[in-house]
């Protein structure tokens, strides 16, 4: 036993170094991923941003409904220009026939505060259910219906399923950034 003990410590040595190195590597990697990830994430939504941000400083910033969502402490124009401001409504037009989903995106990328408009026709009576934000809409058979809602701050970033409740048919996922 006496000879075993130091050897066991020797085992833990390299193992600990490896683990520490892994953690350090993962952390630095995540730092990189964070910057580039956030950058690439904002690129698509940045293009509509200038059009929405430009009128902002001239208007009344305190009354803007989108302000609490973005939570920018000071309405300085330079800061709000770099912030990803609420882009145009995200739309999906879907037709469901005989259990087949037509026209749906795989994922609909949205940000908090953005309006989502889902226009849907189902050939059978169904219920549209947006998980997470818990939006529901009854769909009479064959009638075009539109569900419109603003993405709330809760439950936060993630992929949320948009499905037909009766048949558990997945339509698409709402990708909240």
């Amino acid at each position, binding site marked *: 036993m006496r000879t*075993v003990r130091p*050897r*066991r410590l*020797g*085992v*833990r040595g*390299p*193992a600990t170094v*490896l*683990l520490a*190195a*892994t*953690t350090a*590597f*993962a*952390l630095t*990697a*995540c730092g*990189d*991923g*964070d910057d*580039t*990830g*956030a950058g*690439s994430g904002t690129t698509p939504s940045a293009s509509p941003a200038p059009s929405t941000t430009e009128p902002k400083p001239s208007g009344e910033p305190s009354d803007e409904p989108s302000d609490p969502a973005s939570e920018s402490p000071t309405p300085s124009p330079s800061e709000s220009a770099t912030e990803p401001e609420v882009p145009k409504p995200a739309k999906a037009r879907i037709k469901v026939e005989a*259990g*087949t*989903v037509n026209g749906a995106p*795989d*994922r609909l990328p949205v940000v908090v505060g953005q309006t989502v408009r889902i226009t849907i026709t189902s050939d059978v009576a169904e219920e549209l259910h947006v*998980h*997470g934000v*818990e939006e529901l809409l009854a769909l009479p058979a064959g009638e075009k219906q539109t569900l419109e809602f603003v993405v709330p701050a*809760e*439950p*936060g*970033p*993630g*992929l*949320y*399923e948009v*499905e037909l409740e009766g048949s*558990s*048919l*997945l339509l*698409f*996922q709402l*990708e909240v*950034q």
Partner: protein
Amino acid sequence: MNELVAHGIGGRQDLPIPLELVIAGAAAALVYSFVVLALAWRDSRFDGDAGGLALPPWVTSAVDSPALQWILRVVGLLLVGYTAMVAYVAPDFATNPAAGLVYVVFWLGLIPASLLLGPVWTALNPVRTIHLLLARATGAAPESAGLRSLPAWLGYWPAAAGLLAFAWLELVAPDRATTPVIRAFFTAYLGVHLVGVVVFGSRWLDRGDAFEVFSRLLGRLSPLGRRTDGRIVVRNPLANLDGTSAGPGLAAVVCVLLGSTAYDSLTGSPRFVRWYQASPLGATAAGTLGLLTAVALILAAYALATGLAGRATGLQWRSMPGAFAHALVPIALGYLVAHYLTLFVLEGQRTMIAVSDPFSDGSDWFGTAGYGVDQSVANHPTLIASSQVGAIVLGHVLGAISAHDRSVRLFPRDRVVAGQLPLMALMVAYTVTGLLLLFAA
């Protein structure tokens, strides 16, 4: 499991991880594999159940005391009894906690509980308690109370089959979050294991019960263990893992865990879901086929890699799969943590709230009915993504170290590297697959 909560609220998954993290994780896995291969020790250092630093004798006597064992058995009976009650008696509303109790608190909760304390389900398992009482009534020792002795070739195969059945329930079965489906599964489960213990005695459960085997395998990564002399010891979790008793079907158990988690990840991709929803086979048959294919691919890759390792080292290829199965446990754990950590946090809270009011009549049995779900974990997508990748890479490194130690013990000295290469390639393949699934699905 993404759709398990479709019955209630939820239906949330983590955002896909950024490509940079996939590359960083894959590179780290590759680098560490070669670091382990090239620089790690040349003589086996893990001594399994023979080693460990003994805790004071009172710890062992407390753990082995009939009082504590009976307390744990009663706790097990109460937990399962409550779950059976809500599954059988309470209305099947979205607020019924049965699904959350089975899939989140029990199945996912076994992971942290076993990692901390060891094979907890063996101590709690009500089937074991029922059998013990029956054996006491007939005056027999529970281990030998069976009609026949357990054939050695059976090994872990019943547990592998049980895990696959549970994975099917959790990931494929129609209406899997509703109480009639949960009831049907666990009634069948109880029937099979009652027959098992009556025929083979309680030894049946050691390797035949999916949840006991799952808990015991993960418990092998806990710092607590039992030495061959019976003492409770503290030891390096990897040395603990090294003491896993191999047997026929052990590799299949771990491959089912890996394959089903990979399949679950795949079902997070809308394109894949759309494909099987539109499949002419029907969603259930297509899902079953998908799950079986995922498990079969993981198994085939394992059989190939261990076969190549056997060829390179001149060892019996038949002995190879069992010899390295334990090294896949950390990799499987990495997969599980990466896929289910946020789900466990969010749905676990939801279940803890739901258990207070199982009949949805406004009652508050445990004082938690008025709690809200703290969803703030979702607000840290970068932290989530890096912990997912961290879990997978850490699992890979621990698996690689375990396989290395086993290799230097088993393989002839001049063939160690040749024998290890296919195993390392296999682990890198599993890890990269896991990362890509987090990225793409």
